[in-house]
């Protein structure tokens, strides 16, 4: 027994040495933090192309009062929210300015994670900003974020196959059927997978049919006749024979790629597809129009990002300042042209350089003036999960029954009762 002990000790000692080295490492890692006198404003933003240039612009404009440090968040919206919520729940003071998807405002505000915009900052944020995006940054009549960019879906169609774009869903289905009969590409692409994209589409249809899903205070599930009508339209479309066979598994890029590869004649998608399709298939002939609605052009759902200031920020005044700079008219113009994100300040739409990069800006502006927001409630994530689950797959919708099921489960979701699917 004694004879074998010395051999055992060798790995033991090594383990101790390694362990000590590991524990020493964080001390070294802690060196080099931002304690060199300058005020740092930490910006946590989704990965947006060329945002570094905007940050550099604002650092110049700050003239030494503060420096914005840009930390990237994951690509997917869910990932971004997860990262930020984790820190906010732990009252982390590392975040100052954050990028919030338009649907998160109520949730973050109710949880006490973001600061209200008041006084001069509020006035500047509201000045010249379009109504739709501004509504998405508001909760209980208070402004909680400054809109930075927005997004609306358009109808994209093959200009070599279609002369006049349809204005309603019925016309859309008819046009597609005509193409189908003449043996040409006819499929209509829509993001029908069980995820947020489906909620966006359904919200557009409901708003266009004059319906409501959730009451204004975000506490009651309404799902009225307009919502039922929207369900009928959706079901009609899914079973019409002109929707893609992958409808219930399609997300934005799947639809874009299929259209780009000439498998589709129409697609309902965000403006990003313009640059993407030009790069992917330069010879493709396509055009755009307003999103078709129920009885006329649709009230399209707004997307986009707002900038909010964290409750736990160390330097609030500088944070508000930085946020206002990042989303001012000049920087919005830069981002629109270089990063492909539509602006929220109306005057930017006529600015220099917008017509080559954004030929569809007029259509976008038109839609923005008649837009719809998704249900405004702190429990939006719950609501969205329920809606996308109940409506999937779109082919199995039974308008009356689905509406009843939706109303009941949506109410549970808003009350934060029960289990999410």
């Amino acid at each position, binding site marked *: 027994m004694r*004879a*074998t002990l*010395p*051999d*055992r000790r060798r*790995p*033991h000692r*090594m*383990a101790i040495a*390694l*362990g000590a080295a*590991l*524990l020493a*490492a*964080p001390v070294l*890692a*802690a060196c080099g933090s931002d304690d060199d006198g300058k005020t740092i404003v930490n910006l946590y933003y*989704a*990965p*947006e*192309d060329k945002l570094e240039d905007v940050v550099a612009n604002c650092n110049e404009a700050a003239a030494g009062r503060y420096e914005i440090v840009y*930390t*990237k968040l*994951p*690509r*997917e919206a869910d*990932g971004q929210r*997860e*990262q930020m919520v*984790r820190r906010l*729940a*732990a009252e*982390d003071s*590392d975040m100052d300015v954050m990028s919030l998807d338009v649907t998160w405002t109520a949730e973050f505000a109710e949880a006490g994670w973001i600061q209200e915009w008041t006084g001069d900052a509020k006035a500047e944020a509201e000045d010249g900003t379009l109504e739709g995006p501004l509504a998405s940054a508001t909760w209980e009549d208070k402004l909680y974020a400054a809109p930075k960019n927005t997004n609306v879906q358009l109808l994209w169609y093959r200009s070599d196959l279609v002369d006049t774009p349809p204005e309603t869903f019925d016309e859309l289905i008819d046009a597609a059927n005509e193409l189908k009969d003449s043996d040409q590409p006819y499929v209509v692409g829509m993001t029908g997978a069980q995820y947020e994209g489906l909620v966006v589409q359904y919200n557009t249809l409901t708003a266009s049919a004059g319906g409501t899903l959730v009451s204004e205070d975000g506490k009651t599930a309404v799902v009225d006749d307009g919502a039922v009508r929207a369900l009928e339209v959706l079901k009609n479309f899914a079973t019409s024979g002109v929707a893609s066979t992958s409808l219930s598994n399609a*997300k*934005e*890029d799947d639809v*874009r*790629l*299929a259209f*780009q*590869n000439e498998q589709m004649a129409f697609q309902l998608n*965000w403006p*990003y597809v313009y*640059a*993407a399709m030009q*790069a*992917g*298939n330069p010879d493709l002939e396509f055009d755009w129009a307003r999103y078709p609605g129920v009885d006329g052009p649709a009230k399209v759902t707004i997307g986009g990002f707002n900038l909010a200031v964290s409750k736990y920020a160390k330097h609030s005044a500088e944070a508000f300042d930085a946020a206002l700079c990042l989303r001012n008219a000049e920087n919005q113009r830069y981002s629109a042209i270089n*990063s*492909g*994100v539509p602006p929220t300040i109306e005057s930017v739409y006529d600015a220099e350089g917008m017509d080559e990069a954004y030929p569809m800006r007029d259509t976008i502006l038109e839609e923005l003036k008649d837009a719809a927001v998704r249900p405004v409630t702190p429990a939006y994530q719950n609501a969205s999960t329920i809606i996308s689950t109940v409506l999937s797959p779109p082919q199995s919708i039974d308008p009356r029954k689905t509406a009843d099921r939706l109303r009941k489960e949506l109410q549970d979701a808003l009350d934060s009762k029960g289990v999410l699917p």
Partner: protein
Amino acid sequence: MADTTNKKFGWGLVNALVVVYALFPVLWIVSLSLKGPETLSDGNFIPREFNTDNYQLILDPDNFGLFLRPLINSIGIALISTAIAVVLGTMAAYAIARLSFPGKGLLVGISLLIAMFPQVSLVSPLFEIERSIGLFDTWPGLILPYITFALPLAIYTLSAFFREIPWELEKAAKMDGATPTQAFAKVIAPLAAPGVFTTAILVFIFCWNDFLFAISLTSTEASRTVPAALSFFTGASQFEDPTGSVCAAAVIITIPIVLFVLFFQRRIVAGLTAGAVKG
């Protein structure tokens, strides 16, 4: 002669089947990584034109924080975690397999319990703990959880192997005149080697591929590993999937795995043919 050639041919065929089964989907990833945006969804298994843009993008030294730095993080963190986990696991497994002491059953039970608890709900408390003691976004901040969750598997696997080793051989060698060190090194170690290297491979792969802890316990390239870095890759815009560059990154990070396995699988063979048992 013909018999051996036939046998070789037969085995060659079987090998080919295994390689195809294992590598076909991998080749698909390679193929996706070599396609440009125009041909990405054309459904061809072999790209019509080879486009190395994706590789150039992620290996560009100007984009150091995008992929190269996470790669270094991954290599360092995985190697250190594997080394420590195997050492600690070997010690514990030896004790469990060979010695009797009270609390043995409890230890095994606890390590199994840890292996079984869903990690998704441990992440937030871990995040808070690491933040308060300053380990967040550091190498040790990832190494410690990796060791923790690799240990149950390591202990279980190693003790299963250690149980099979005939320990009397050690006594026999010593009676033949070997010193304790020689007895251990020449008789026991080769028998323990297959188990140790098997465990090392499994632990390394676990640390290398983990995503949940990497995304939750890091925030900058200081300690972010490659699986987490993949979710920061962007296409040209918010909705475009950066399929090409993600696949290129996947191909590159598989190479260390291949090397690691190639290196260790020979050790397993060496351990088996050491021949101590067959005497």
